[in-house]
């Protein structure tokens, strides 16, 4: 089955992307990605720029509304995702447990709909 790991990163972790801690921060993610690849479970994924860069679009009374910022402000921010191919939710949870964002944030595990 395919699962998406939806990564919610704590603001203090997002802050580590630049400056002194940046090297350690990115190495953590690189190692995690490499482990997923080596295990042959990685299907895809993406890392996102901080929410400050987000723009949200809505349609109101048929008119396009463009708003600076994310869809919803949350304590931890939606920072990226991985798609995995594994046998069961247990294996997906096992991989989620190793995700660097988990220390301070959260990882949501969701099955992916497979279109036939």
């Amino acid at each position: 089955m395919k699962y998406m790991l939806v990564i919610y990163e704590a603001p203090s972790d997002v802050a580590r992307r630049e400056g002194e801690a940046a090297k350690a921060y990115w190495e953590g993610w690189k190692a995690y990605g490499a482990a997923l690849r080596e295990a042959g479970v990685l299907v895809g994924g993406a890392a996102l720029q901080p929410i400050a860069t987000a723009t949200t679009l809505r349609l109101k009374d048929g008119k396009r509304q463009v708003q600076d910022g994310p869809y919803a402000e949350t304590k931890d921010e939606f920072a990226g995702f991985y798609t995995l191919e594994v046998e069961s939710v247990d294996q997906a949870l096992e991989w989620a447990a190793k995700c660097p964002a988990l220390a301070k944030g959260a990882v949501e595990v969701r099955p992916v709909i497979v279109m036939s």
Partner: protein
Amino acid sequence: MNEDARRAIEDAARVSQRRLIAFLSSRCRDLSRCEDALGDAFQEAVEQWPETGVPASPEAWLLTVARRRLIDRTRRADTEHQAEAELLAAWDEAAAMSATAELPDERIKLLFVCAHPAIAPEMHTPLMLQVVLGLDAARIASAFLLAPTTMGQRLVRTKLKIRDAGIPFEVPGPESLAERLEAVLSAIYAAYGAGREIVDADDQRSDLRVEALSLAQLCAALLPAEPEAWGLLSLLLYCEAREPARRTADGGYVRLSEQDTALWSEPLLHQAEAALREASRARRFGRFSFEAAIQSVHAQRRLTGVTDWAALALLYGALMRVAPTIGAGVAQAGAVLEAHGAAAALPFLDAFEPSDVVSYQPYWAVRANVLERSGRTADARAAYERALGLSSDAAARAHLAERLARLR
């Protein structure tokens, strides 16, 4: 309907139904659909067996029909073909079983599905009662004080999650077995507890105790190498043995150390002791094994006439190391008080976080007792008053009021 056919169908419904569900659902993962398909198979049995006679292996017959219905339903729903392939594999397996061979008992897998960490903990017990024991939603709802439709909807939603989230129908590997089993056993314990919270014998919840006991028996039988499975079985058997002595005729609660031992069930106590011996075989003690051992010390009172409080203090200490709870901590302080005196017991009570015990009645009852025996009369009075105000049981209130009156 002819008598043989009726009896065969009843036997199959009682004995085979849940095993068939376990067998089918561990292969197609869709519990609701398996239950519907097996329901169809039973309906066909009711229609055909009186005409054609009871098949040589009713279980194999039901499995064949249920499998066919399942494939029909799967086709109709037009979902993944993978499920169908798995079904066909299940069919081959079933065909390979000789007509007399027993269906493998895979209900243990269902227990692990029901108590999976991806399922909300409050649904673990209701799911087990329905999926593993076949209780209907209305009965489960009454046990959990919910409207039948609400419980029904929650069960349906949870079964959909099991199917769509890909929760595996398997016994976890050794690396996570102990942890996952704990959730299974806790859910069974919760079912027993729900069955206990009643005074009225007509209440449907009382048979919940029996159902919980049967689940504990199933766990021990199917995972005989797991000490905690035996520990829970032993614990529940001890509780069940003492059930007739737990309340007075007018429904008042009787404390364990004051129960009339003549009312305890000797056969159940023997079974409990045997299960505890199995639990201690592996020399690996967990929460339920310690709780069963605590019960066994209390049970000894029927032979010795006294309660061995020193042994209880040690066992509660051990329980607190593996599974610290406020209840166990307060019980530990109570045992230390009886075994070693008030001065030894007070530090255990003082160690609690005040916010944890602010409205926990047993804490204040034990604390009052400790303070009274330390000669701190004014403090003891305040603690008794506090315990009295937090009591929900008439017998406990009367007991505390009497103690309080003595201090005035």
